[in-house]
């Protein structure tokens, strides 16, 4: 009988022992569980994560934004780009705007989240180096300014908690958040390029806030120039903080981090590899098949030569394939901010001085009133801020039209319209439903 019961014992053992053991505890080496973020050693990885997320977000949102301007045009197969070409910028169903929107949402949330975590480390005395925190403030400011620059409205949800939209009338407050972040970043006494970037970004944020006020509720085309003392002061400080006369702060895309490139949304990939988009006809002569750049054609209005900076930018953009870096702020933009404020004040001398400081970098003849100063400003911004996400606002405020905008398109019918909260957020957020 003993033999008979042995199998019973075996089965019983299996029934009792197996479920109780820890065999159900499986490992997940693929990702970081949230608890691991409580370790201050993760500070740098957090800052890098915010940088990566912001880079990915800008890379994604710049494509639909730029296509809605004259900077990019659709030459491929996916016709939602064409709708942006037409100036139908506010369609929440547009596949590309909708695909880019989540990256922007993620970057904003991540910046806020990791700034809070890093501040907590600092408060606990666990943050050995303030640089990750200062960097995070910079990236946070970049994404806030980007949202305010490019969107008509936005929501600030937190994980599962949906938030109501801030409302179009309140989007200007986002610049205040950005400026606050930059203040806090600068308060950490960063040095070198980080300090310059923080100062430059604060100048840009203040400038953009003033610009936003010009565009809302409707574009003030009669008085489009920006004259913001704070922006000018920060721009001057940023210029002074660097020995490099043509510095720029970029979010860098590199083959070592291919996941930063969102294939369907990368301007560079769509222009250089897939040939879905092309640099707009305002700037270049296309090849016979219309797919690529044959030559840069936009000329300098004074010298009548192909604008050298634009040509080098487009060449670099093309050569970079899908890894074209994204310029966030630059010495040229600082001078444009100062120049524009001067022009608004009627100070043509300072205006020319700043414009010529840029033109000298390109070996161009100095501006001395050969053309209207405002035209010079518009041209300079068109060239020096090319593909940096500024063009749509400039088109609106200066009363200009992209040649691809259709007369029935939103950009013409409702100038001042920017990108919308898209359907992916609308469907998931009961405040928008």
């Amino acid at each position, binding site marked *: 009988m003993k033999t008979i019961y042995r199998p019973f014992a075996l089965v019983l053992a299996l029934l009792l022992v197996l479920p109780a053991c820890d065999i159900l505890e*499986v*490992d997940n080496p693929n990702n970081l*569980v949230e608890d691991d973020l409580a370790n201050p050693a993760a500070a740098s990885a957090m800052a*890098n994560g915010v940088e990566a997320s912001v880079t990915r977000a800008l890379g994604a949102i710049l494509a639909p934004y730029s296509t809605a301007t004259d900077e990019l045009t659709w030459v491929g197969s996916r016709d939602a780009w064409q*709708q942006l070409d037409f100036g139908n910028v506010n369609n929440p169903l547009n596949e590309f705007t909708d695909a880019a929107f989540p990256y922007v949402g993620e970057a904003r949330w991540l910046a806020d989240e990791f700034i809070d975590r890093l501040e907590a480390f600092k408060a606990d005395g666990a943050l050995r180096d303030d640089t990750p925190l200062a960097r995070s403030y910079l990236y946070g400011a970049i994404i806030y300014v980007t949202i305010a620059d490019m969107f008509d409205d936005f929501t600030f*949800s937190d994980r599962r908690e949906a938030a109501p939209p801030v409302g179009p009338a309140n989007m200007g407050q986002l610049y205040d958040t950005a400026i606050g972040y930059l203040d806090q970043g600068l308060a950490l006494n960063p040095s070198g390029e980080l300090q310059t970037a923080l100062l430059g970004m604060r100048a840009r944020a203040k400038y953009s806030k003033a610009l936003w006020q010009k565009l809302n509720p409707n574009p003030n085309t009669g008085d489009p120039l920006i004259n913001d003392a704070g922006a000018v002061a920060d721009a001057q400080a940023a210029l002074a903080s660097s020995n490099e006369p043509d510095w720029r702060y970029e979010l860098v895309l590199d*083959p070592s981090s291919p996941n930063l490139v969102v294939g369907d949304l990368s301007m560079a990939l769509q222009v250089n590899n897939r040939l879905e988009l092309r640099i707009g006809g305002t700037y270049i002569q296309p090849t016979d098949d219309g797919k690529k750049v044959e030559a840069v054609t936009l000329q300098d209005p004074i010298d009548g030569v192909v604008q050298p900076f634009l040509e080098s930018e487009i060449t670099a953009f093309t050569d970079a394939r899908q890894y074209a870096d994204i310029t966030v702020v630059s010495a040229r933009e600082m001078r444009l901010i100062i120049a524009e404020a001067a022009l608004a004040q009627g100070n043509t001398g300072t205006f020319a001085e700043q414009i010529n400081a840029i033109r000298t970098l390109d070996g161009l003849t100095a501006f001395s009133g050969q053309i209207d100063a405002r035209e010079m400003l518009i041209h300079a911004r068109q060239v020096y801020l090319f593909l940096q996400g500024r063009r749509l606002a400039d088109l609106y405020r200066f009363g200009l039209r992209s040649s691809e905008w259709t007369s029935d398109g939103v950009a013409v019918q409702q100038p001042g319209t920017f990108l919308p909260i898209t359907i992916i957020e609308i469907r998931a957020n009961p405040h928008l439903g």
Partner: protein
Amino acid sequence: MKKSLPLLMVLCLCPALAWAQGTLTGTVRDAATDDPLIGAQVVIPALNLGSVTNIDGVYTVEAVPAGTHVVEIRYIGYRTQRETVTVASGQTQTLDVRLEESAINLDEVVVTGAGGPVEKRKLGNSIATIDAAALETAPIQSFSDVIQGREPGLVGLPSGGLTGEGTRIRIRGTASLSQSNEPIVYIDGVRVDRDGGFGGTNSFVGSGGGGSPSRLDDINPESIERVEVLKGAAAATLYGTEASNGVIQIFTKRGLVGPPRFTFSIQQGAITYPEIYPDQVGFGRSQAQADTMSVYYGRALRPFELVNQNFVHDLFETGYSQTYSASVSGGTPGITYHVSTRWQGENGPFGGDDRRYPVGVTTLADDALKRAQATATLNIFPNDKLQIRVTNGYTDSQFKTLETNNNIYGVVSLAQFSRPERVTFNNQTGTPAFATVNEAMQQTVEQSVQHYNGSVGLNYRPLDILTLDGTFGVDFTNEISEELRPFGWNVDGFSSDTPEGRRRFADRNNLELTFDVKGTLNTQLSERYESSFLFGTQGFISRERLESGQGVDFPGPGFDVTGAASQQALFEEFLEIVNLGVFAQEQFGINNYIFVTAGARLDANSAFGSDFDAVIYPKVSASVIPSDAPFWRPLGPVSSLRFRAAIGRSGLQPGAFDALTTFGALPSITGPGVVPQNLGNPELEPEVSTEWELGTEMGLVNDRVAFETTYWNRTVSDALVDRQFPVTGGFVARQLDNIGEIKAQGVELDVNAFVVNRADVSVNLFANASYLWERVTDLGGAPPIKVGGSYPRYRNFLIEDYAPGANFGAKLLEVPDGSLPVDFNGDGAADTEAEVLAFLATLTPSTASLPTSPSVVLLADDDGDGDPLDHYLGKPTPDWQGAFGGSVKFFRNFTVSTLFEYKTGNYYVNNLTDAFRQANAVIGRNLPESAPVERDYITGGVDAGFNPLNDPNVRLEALETWLNELLALAPFSGLNTIKQADYIRWRELSLTYSAPRGFVQSYGLRNLSFTVAARNLKLWTKYDGIDPELNAVGRGSGSGLDQNFLDGVEAFGFPIPRRFLFTVRFGF
């Protein structure tokens, strides 16, 4: 061979009784034809003794205790017969039997879902059996072919017609909104890798959605003895978590006691694609363009003169396939064996070798498959209480396919949206974007697979009433996929994408460990009551490792390793899932015609949330066979009758790490970084599928006609919804929540009829149908889920109160008679025909372009919610589908068999191929229907010399066609695109000649047959595209959501090819 594996466990037991024994022998024949039946089972149930007939229909049961016994003789397709025989000690008793054909066989022994071998008649749930022997002459080359069209409710979705392309499988529709809807698959009790594609969602490698192989096709179809199918939770409860989509269990062939029996098969085949692609049509817009076209088309062309070309058919050739297989089986009373091997080679019908290429260039793209398979099975019987089973199956395959489907670098995709007016010397088809056809044919996609499945099984009977059974198995896959664009692949200088080349690879290793230990206590409680108590434990461990990489930009030609590239990227992933369950079941029999079964399984799974421990899946079923009751009297033509009812639960666990809040790696230029990955949900638990079914099985006309009906009803509660939370909340990826509900119900009908059975002629007919109704009844407040991401041309959604995967999209605004849904004059209202004509009269060839702006073309918004793309446009799953056919045997030695498959009723397919071709301004408008419309709209009609007439009425007619038939794609997604797709396909036809027995034996052979067969001979359909069975994604390609619900989307795939096969089979 027609037998049941578990029964063999009993049949082959060797009695150890040494005294008062005799031998029972005899021959089993077909009562009608007098032909011997091979593989019939002869059993003495009370003694657990038995044997199986050999090639001559002869059986021998040795060591039969002297005395009088009841002998059962069973054979699939025949009515089980019971005879009483008396065996004398030391003597041989002869019992010859003639079995009568029967279309219904309630005594068939099955295993799957029952815990052990049991007759179907005792089960309250339906269980389908596919007998491979019955398919021996069918044109079958893969496991996908084995199951296609055999059982109502079991659906194979082939997705495309490239060589080696796998089939997705659905049983009774959709049981999950987020997890795989594929059934779990076992071979001889061991879980099988059921993956497909080229390494999964995170792999760098892909072919664009088509040409996607299935790991299930690694199974040697000729090693299969039979397949058992559990269709849902009511039957699959004992399989617990993961079983709510049903269970498919494959039983491989086993050896029989006797001398070695060799079997050989040689098959040669031809494969062709139907030449059904519409021409590419275009016209020159200018004299210069017309002049260029004239050069290439060899005739003088004028602007606006239409030119027809077909750039697709030039890519096709006649493919060739060959298959060689051999097996040997046999054994002694102590050990039996079955060893088989098979080699399959196929060079598919994609060609292109004869095209004009630049000097030194030829096509590299290929559609080919080489597959070597071997199986070896041993059954060892150390004594009369113990059996040891050892199974081994190994497959090595080398597979090549193309870039295809909804893929801008797909070969046929590029050919299809070529435009005749853009033809140049280096762009022979005039592809307007991305790459030339020649360039696309420089890309290769290859896969190398080694796949092993094996098990060790122990069956021990310590007591006559107690059986202990254990199965321990492993299924291991080593799969390497590669996608290569060699340096300088843009041989025509057209493409700008990675001109210095790109290599991608995915190295996937998958391990499935299975253990299954159970005991069965069979007790005859009294003359009237019997009990079968089952208890046991089952578990599996699934470990998958994926290493994938990409290298871009080689320093020069000749490199095809990732390490040589200047830009390199790597991805690595490890997934482990552990599931453990214990179960118990009691089956209670009353008077041998009433059976009640109750059982439950307790499951724990590593993927459950930390706040959730385990789940219990109960089941109850009943089977009543009035025709086996003493009171039974035949009811008119009804000769057999069974009623059954079952209710049960099973589940599906969430993904391996869905419960955790995680952050993933995303490096910046500064260094490694972390970003949000998975929102997490510690309360995650399995979704629970509750299914009940009622069924009858009826034998009519002395069981020559069998009629089986099943009604089933399923509710999936706590359904795992892949919920999109607000993306501005930081976590972009969807998160599973147990908040949904899906309801489904269906009817399955199956008729088999042995119409005629004479020695010279027999006719067997069958037909089956399944009706499916399914709804997403609750998404728990989650927003509708769009399939295919933000890509607007895929219109499948999960939306409450609609079938899963239903299509939603745009439709034109309904306007009064005399108006058109356009607003050219910008007054915000639909223009009258007069207003339209007035506008059209202002156009010239240089200004006219077909309207594509939503501010001009007016769309309906029926619910007024501001979303014009939310109109229901039909579902991709038909109400009814099934198959019918039969076989006719004539002149004694000839057999014709055929099978037709159909889908009908509210069945729609998104014809995305033609949506592009009819509407897209850059890569389309080249259909025979669309090019003239564009031409006429631009020109306002042309005269005999193709000079524009500027007639607004011609433009109006073109505009109406444009709006009502052609306009499609964003922002009009769904419009003029989603088409009715009912079809009947002539799936199989075969003619077999079996050489006469005398002739065969004169050459020392056991059998000899010749078969000519065809597969996918003909398609009748309402669908206006290439093939309604095509789909944008094949098995294992796309995301998990796409795998489930991106159905009914035809997007540049290869049509299902016709196959013509000639097979010679012989054995000795």
